[in-house]
């Protein structure tokens, strides 16, 4: 019984997060200016991280947690680098 409930809710969570990633991808492809694309990419990083955490609950393995942590770190570094690039035209001065 509890396994069935958990499986259904995992499926719903995966569908929601995939839809969220699709919406951010649409904004990233369409976004009128560069900053909209960067914002959409950052949101997509967060959504992918949440999706990996949900996959981790589904499979019961802790490797997904480590992947989510790495994606969170990379998302921060990538967004800061791109914001710096939009500001100055160079990442490292």
């Amino acid at each position, binding site marked *: *019984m*509890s*396994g069935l*409930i*958990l499986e*259904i*809710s*995992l499926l*719903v*969570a*995966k569908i*929601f*997060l995939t*839809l*969220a*990633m699709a*919406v*951010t991808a*649409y*904004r990233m492809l369409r976004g009128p*200016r560069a*900053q*909209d694309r*960067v*914002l*959409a990419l*950052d*949101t997509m990083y*967060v*959504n992918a*991280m*949440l999706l990996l*955490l*949900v996959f*981790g*609950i589904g499979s*019961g393995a*802790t490797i997904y*947690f480590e992947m*989510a*942590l790495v994606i*969170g*770190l990379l998302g*921060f570094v990538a*967004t*800061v680098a791109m*914001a*710096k690039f*939009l*500001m100055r035209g160079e990442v490292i001065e």
Partner: protein
Amino acid sequence: MTIEELPLWAALLISVLLILGSGLALIGSIGLLHFKTFYERVHAPTLGSTLGLFSILTGSMLYFSMTEMRFVLHEFLIGAFLTVTTPVTFLLLVQATLYRDRFEGNDPLADLSRNIRQAIER
């Protein structure tokens, strides 16, 4: 403890947390599509990266603590890291956008104060 041996209250609580978190992430992403200007759009995704993130992390912590019969709290690392970094990244991004807008000659803050002044005079 396997998944089938999980007590019903734990399964229900984990399900509610998971659906709440993913729903909030979806609402935040739809807000990214819905709002008209960039400065409004910046607010939307933080819904998913604060409450959405923390409810999914709490569900994950609860699930692994119940199945492994010990406290599994390493998910808290992700929560602490994202809580610190999300405001920093968005502040930098908005600063860059403001700089680019002013460089092109349209200042959103000046437009805002002009609109407020007109509203007061009217």
